[in-house]
């Protein structure tokens, strides 16, 4: 009996001490620096080919936008970066971004992540972090 309790306690301890998920789990799942960069480049190609949303980028400094988006996704996924851009609300105000625009971008992101073989669980984790930004981006 004592042995049983002792082994049960041991099992419990082993269970509890199993490594907690690292802070940069999502960043690593996205493929770290290389992966996040590829993700952003893939997304830029999708945006460029999408007549619905490309118009919003007519006056955008694309190299700067690319750098900021890489920073943002890196920081958001727990990577070693600091996003140095404006808040989502500031950077989208006045662009009249619609729900359809936002939906298209989400669609493109899923497509690019799937093409780059990001696991579904990691895709969903990233979407969970991006979805609440809707209210700061759309109809501003």
């Amino acid at each position: 009996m004592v042995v049983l309790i002792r082994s049960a306690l041991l099992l419990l301890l082993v269970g509890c001490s199993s490594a907690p998920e690292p802070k940069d789990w999502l960043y690593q799942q996205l493929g770290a620096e290389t992966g996040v960069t590829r993700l952003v480049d893939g997304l830029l190609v999708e945006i460029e080919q999408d007549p619905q949303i490309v118009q919003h980028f007519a006056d955008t400094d694309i190299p700067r936008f690319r750098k900021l988006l890489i920073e943002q996704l890196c920081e958001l996924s727990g990577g070693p970066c600091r996003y140095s851009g404006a808040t989502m609300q500031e950077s989208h105000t006045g662009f009249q971004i619609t729900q359809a625009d936002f939906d298209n971008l989400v669609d493109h992101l899923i497509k690019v992540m799937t093409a780059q073989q990001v696991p579904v669980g990691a895709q969903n984790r990233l979407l969970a972090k991006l979805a609440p930004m809707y209210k700061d981006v759309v109809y501003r």
Partner: protein
Amino acid sequence: MKKPLLSTALLLCSLNVAAAGSKVLATGGATSIEGAAGGGIVPWAVINGYGSSGQWSVTGYASQVGVDDFTLNSKGIGLSYDNKYELSFGRQELKLDTMGGELNQQIIGLKYKIAGELLYSAMPQISVGLQLKKQLDFAIPAAVGARHDSGTDIYVAASKVWFDALWGRNILLNATVRGTKGQQTGLLGFGTVSNDDYQWVSEFSAVMLLNPQWAVGAEFKQKPNELAFAREDHWRDVFVAWFANKHLSLVAGHVDLGSIATFEHQTGYYLALESTWSF
């Protein structure tokens, strides 16, 4: 009915036109047997098709429920605009396989999204809806005690998707409250000789999105029990849904409809095909 629809859908898909709409895959849901976007037996707060803000969507569907003593064929068309307004025209044919004969019902559905965004807001998406139902073969329902051959269901539905909710998968939950006078959703008429009040029932769906294209789920539909001649049970189902792309989806499920018109333990299959086009 099904074969021409399927081949048409496949043909149209192979054309690969741009009329796909902006909404994310699977967020238009499937089409319930009453014509509203939802699960198989529960109307959800989602709007049918893939039309997002400022876009139109047209959806055609056909489904079949086959249980021990009955077969229910449903088909119809839905129209939506702005991911906010939904209009549907549905036709149901209940074949009384054991008794012989059939009961037909037509349903005009209206749905309006009042708040929230399925994917993006902390608050669930909330919609209100109406279903104007007309039983076209009233002789049998009247004989067993139904009062009216038509009735209007009203409902409010709340749906929300939680990303990364369980085992890294996205979960959709829906709850619907409905006011109805319908017996067996109206297939056995509306109201009874002894009671003509609205009955309030709750309906629930839970769905896990395994990946962008595949989902599994379960539903529960509470039912009134007003007709004296036979007990009416709550309905349940479990299903698998496959969203091939924004034009074609298939749902296959197992249903438990309980007792229907004195025929006990009605269980069987559910199959649904849907094609949608957005502009």
